[in-house]
């Protein structure tokens, strides 16, 4: 019987090892690929003994490709872990990191900022990754988070919260559309480019902010693994097992918002990874235990994000595709496949 409870079965350990290997492999592949292809030997040599190697390659690797690959990993980790937490709390398979309106909050803040201070952002098409826009976006998602936390302290029912979050997102979306309507062409284009998401514009210094925030968010999710498991059975059972519902939910929301908010601030809103990765993890590991699902979603998310990044800059393409479109085109078939394959999907 222990076998039917033991989360770390031989099969699951093998899967973890496989996903970790893929992570290393995709990471390397990601920094190999780009508009200019260098021989593997040369890249390896530059990686391990940068002195005396081609300075151009060194710059490309250390200033662009490696930060971008690390960003991809961080984004995949953050979005999938926060997506998993939202799916569990709301017991809804279509919940994701943005279900509480974090991305629409960020969008509204960025749109307002662009309208209010066109001088600060005009002229540059690539807002994403600039400190100003990142801080504005973070403030937007942070305000939304505070609002949601304030409401969730009063509303006891998760379904009500979910509906409020969705309504809130739609309302904010309408405001953003109005702002867009009154924007001039260059601001509008920049805004739309921002909503497409980008992994490539994060600098090394910004990573020093993003990485600790993501690590903190992931640690918070680990602290709440046991409570997340309890939430799977519903609030009544969670409460009867001794979980302090409101307090626990507050910590989980704060962690999930930190994760999704940080990534959205620096990379723009990136969709579908947060919905698809936890489902893939559940199907792969055949588990509902968060002790498995948190690390599994995190690895799956990072792997998928690296693949998405590679697809967005396929060799032969002169420019990169918007990362948001790649993740959507990759994520949607996965979700559809899972719905068709597993009819019990909807019962989460």
């Amino acid at each position, binding site marked *: *019987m*222990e*076998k*039917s*409870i033991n989360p770390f079965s031989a099969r699951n350990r093998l899967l973890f090892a496989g996903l970790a290997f893929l992570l290393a492999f995709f990471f390397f592949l990601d920094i190999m690929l780009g508009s200019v292809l260098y021989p593997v030997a040369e890249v390896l040599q530059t990686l391990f003994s940068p002195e005396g190697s081609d300075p151009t390659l060194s710059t490309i690797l250390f200033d662009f490709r490696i930060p971008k690959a690390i960003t991809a990993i961080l984004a995949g980790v953050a979005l999938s872990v926060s997506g998993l937490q939202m799916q569990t709390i709301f017991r809804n398979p279509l919940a994701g990191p943005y279900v509480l309106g974090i991305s629409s909050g960020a969008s509204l803040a960025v749109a307002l900022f662009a309208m209010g201070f066109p001088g600060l952002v005009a002229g540059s098409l690539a807002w994403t990754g600039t400190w100003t826009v990142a801080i504005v976006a973070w403030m937007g998602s942070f305000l939304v988070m505070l609002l949601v936390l304030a409401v969730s302290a009063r509303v006891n029912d998760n379904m009500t919260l979910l509906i409020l979050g969705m309504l809130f997102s739609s309302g904010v979306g309408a405001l953003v559309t109005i702002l867009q309507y009154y924007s001039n062409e260059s601001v509008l284009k920049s805004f739309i480019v921002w909503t497409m998401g980008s992994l490539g514009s994060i600098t090394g210094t910004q990573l020093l902010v993003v990485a600790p925030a993501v690590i903190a968010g992931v640690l918070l999710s680990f*602290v709440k*693994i*046991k409570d997340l*498991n*309890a939430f*799977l*059975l*519903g609030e*009544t*059972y969670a*409460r*009867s*097992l*001794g*979980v*302090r519902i409101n307090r626990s939910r507050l910590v989980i929301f704060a962690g999930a918002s930190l994760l999704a908010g940080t990534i959205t601030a620096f990379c723009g809103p990136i969709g579908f990874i947060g919905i698809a990765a936890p489902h893939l993890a*559940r199907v792969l*590991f*055949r*588990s*509902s*235990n968060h*002790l498995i699902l948190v690390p599994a979603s995190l690895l799956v998310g990072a792997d998928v994000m690296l693949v998405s990044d590679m697809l967005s800059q396929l060799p032969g393409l002169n420019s990169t595709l918007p990362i948001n479109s790649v993740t959507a085109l990759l994520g949607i078939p996965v979700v559809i496949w899972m719905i068709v394959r*597993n009819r*019990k*999907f909807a*019962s*989460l």
Partner: protein
Amino acid sequence: MKAENRQITLQTENLDVGYAVPGKTDSFTRRAISVSAVRGEIIALIGPNGIGKSTLLKTLAGLIPKVTGQILVNGSPAGDYNPDQLSRLLSFVSTEKPMVPQMTVAELVAYGRFPYTGWLGTLKKEDHLRVREAISKVGITHLSGNMINEISDGERQRAMIARALAQDTPLIILDEPTAFLDISNTYAIFHLLHELARKEQKTIILSTHDLHLALQKMDKLWIMLDTATLEGAPEDAILRGWLQHLFPDDKVGFNASKGEFFFRYKPAGSLAVEGGGKAYTMTVKALERKGYQVTRFSGEKSYISVKEGIKSTAPSWELTGQESRMVFHSIYDLVSEL
């Protein structure tokens, strides 16, 4: 049981339960509930739909706040326990069906160990032992590795009870544990809970609409009515006519001497029956169902004579009227003719 051995597990004093109805000044409340449960007792909470049975059970389980009054768990006010302590004294089985994908029966039952495990919820040897015991007590050891959304409702309800057992609490509260179950599963669950109260000395409180079973299997009934909440042995409830309050209209009655419910019909007339044995009893039952007042045959002009089957011959019925005599080979045919 001697008086000094009677340990009161749960007691309420002048408890008001209810919840605020948004937008209305007067909220739903049920007032002045004073009931008690002793260790090793199995108790059924009965009452009409919407009277507040779930509200009372959830309040007792600490899932929703009480309005006023006192709840004593093991002699101390329930509010004196923190959630962790309470979860080791009291487990709850709700009407919700947990339909989590990718969760085995054993994993579900292991949730019962939640109050005893560390921050990651890892099970120790002792926890595995308790889980295995709980699963075997409810008789579903063969299902341990099955996914919970691939077993039947009856099996899942057993798993939920095993989960409560694994929680290892002196008190188990179940909200309509047999609501989704067929008759044989309902009997099996009542039997199981009865055994647990006897053998494990658990205090078990459940709500049910199955009065017939409640009267047979319970040590005590809590009867929740508009006006008051009454408690006593099933037989007390019968003697004092409390059960009549559950049927405010006059369509259904309760036969105090038989301890059975019956439907009231306009009498269709009286009929004399002669005969004996099982066939006779069933015939009387069928005639009463049709609204006849049945008397023993004593020379009436028209009567029914039940010929019980001897060995392999089937029973038959003879209906003697003023001028006719008819033979039937089933009760159905007989009562159709009347």
